[in-house]
């Protein structure tokens, strides 16, 4: 089972998305975020999810969801067909994050990306002193059963966005219980970014 996004992650996303927006959640899990967005923000929401059990729970919540693999693309959606596309905690789990993010930026006017920071100080500590692949609250898996396929840091992602001309409109860094302001590449467990394409 995939780590469930933390409360703060959802709070940040709720802050960023305005009332009445249209949202596509890629890897929507059991639909908790989408349900909150519909209830509190009156958004028009859709989700894509690979787990059949999660789809059943989404349908029970009355959501519009599709049992699909986001790695196979978003060809059924036209350009800019959503105000927001959310890729929270799925970005590092897809086979082709580069392709998925570019597709997300095609179909969404803005994209919200959230991922665990692999170079959080605790992870560095475990690697450096323990000589082992880190297991931390934001990276709670052993190397042999992790759903995470790509390991990146906040700094890696910033560089990647710069190279691809993705504008980072907003960024929030989250530690164990609070938002991190200082040196996020070291102290943030999770990074959340609001991106758009520079035209």
């Amino acid at each position, binding site marked *: 089972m995939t780590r469930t996004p933390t409360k703060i992650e959802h709070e940040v996303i709720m802050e960023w998305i305005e009332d009445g927006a249209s949202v596509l959640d890629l890897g929507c899990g059991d639909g908790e975020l989408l349900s909150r967005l519909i209830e509190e923000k009156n958004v028009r929401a859709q989700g894509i999810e690979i787990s059949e059990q999660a*789809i059943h729970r989404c*349908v*029970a919540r*009355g959501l*519009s*969801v*599709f049992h*699909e693999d986001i790695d196979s693309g978003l060809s*059924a959606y036209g350009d800019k067909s959503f105000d927001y596309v959310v890729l929270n905690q799925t970005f590092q789990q897809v086979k082709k994050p580069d392709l998925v993010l570019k597709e997300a930026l095609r179909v969404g006017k803005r994209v919200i990306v959230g991922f665990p920071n692999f170079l959080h100080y605790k992870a560095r500590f475990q690697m450096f002193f323990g000589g082992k692949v880190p297991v931390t609250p934001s990276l709670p898996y052993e190397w042999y059963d992790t759903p995470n396929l790509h390991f990146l840091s906040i700094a890696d992602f910033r560089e990647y966005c710069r190279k691809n001309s993705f504008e980072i409109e907003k960024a929030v860094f989250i530690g164990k219980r609070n938002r991190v302001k200082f040196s996020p590449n070291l102290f943030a467990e999770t990074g959340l970014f609001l991106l758009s394409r520079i035209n």
Partner: protein
Amino acid sequence: MEKNETKYFTFAEPPDELVLESGEKLGPITLAYETYGKLNREKSNAILVLHALSGDAHAARLHPDDQNLGWWENFIGSGKGLDTDKYFVICSNVIGGCRGSTGPSSINPKTGKPYGTDFPIVTIGDMVNAQSHLIDYLGIYKLLTVIGGSMGGMEVLQWMVSYPGRIRSAIPIATALKHTPQQIAFNEVGRQAVMADPNWKRGHYYGSAVPAKGLAVARMIGHITYMSDVSMAEKFGRRVKADKEPFKFAAEFEVEGYLQYRGDNFVKRFDANSYLYITKAIDYFNILNGHSLNDIFKGLKAKVLVIAFKSDWLYPSYQSQEIVKALKLAGVDASYCEVNSTYGHDAFLLEVEEETHLIKHFLQTVSNGKNGD
């Protein structure tokens, strides 16, 4: 006590015959149908169930003491997926069929004899048009949902295109926007088996021996395509029958006995000409029919739930994904689930637990919605 009974509705009396998609006229037309549950005062709780190739109006029993099980018995009833405590469920036999609705075995009023192959070619669109007359007759304008698997799913898609304003939701299961060459090929082998039977006599066999062997072989082929490699291995393995006869080529393996039993049983309740007409209607089905994937469902306000099954190789899930793609392109409020099942195409009749969970909640969402006008 009220017994489970099939009712009959006759319409399209000459000169007001139903004009078929082929341009030919058909009338009078009788539809056999059954209903379960009660229509509410607002007439907003009606569900139309659409059967597959060999199905009929008898989708469920009204009472547990009825001898004949309905074909969707474990899905329709009190507290079940289609809960008859809440909903008014209607199921009718298609035109072209042989289970009480007008088809090739019915009497042609012009000759006083069964139509046989003089029966006009009917399409999925014609079947749905006939159903809309039944719904009118029952005093219902807007259906809560239309639901069906396989050919029934094609009829669901046809309702979405022909009568989008008359449905609040739609549930196409294990179906396709159009029949593929592989699907047509299997149907054609079945038809050839029927037509190769010397008793077929170009379709005019009524009153004499029926083309039983040909129809049984057609049904055997059908059954192979409805199962999966895994479900066959689990059901039969390579086991041989206990009472195998010492004759060469008699049914030795259990799978052979099963197919023969299914084939022979089918002949008792199904007309060979209906098999030809209905398989042809399925083969002709192409909901796009000149439209593009982009605009086929444009403007559809109904909510749609698409369901496919993983091991279904007769109607593979990619075909359901095409339906989903068309729905997304049209901006229709939809959901899609590919149920993990080993039953093959038959899964739509067997994976009742998953279907019940999905459909119960989906119908609840539709019922709660504001689109009740």
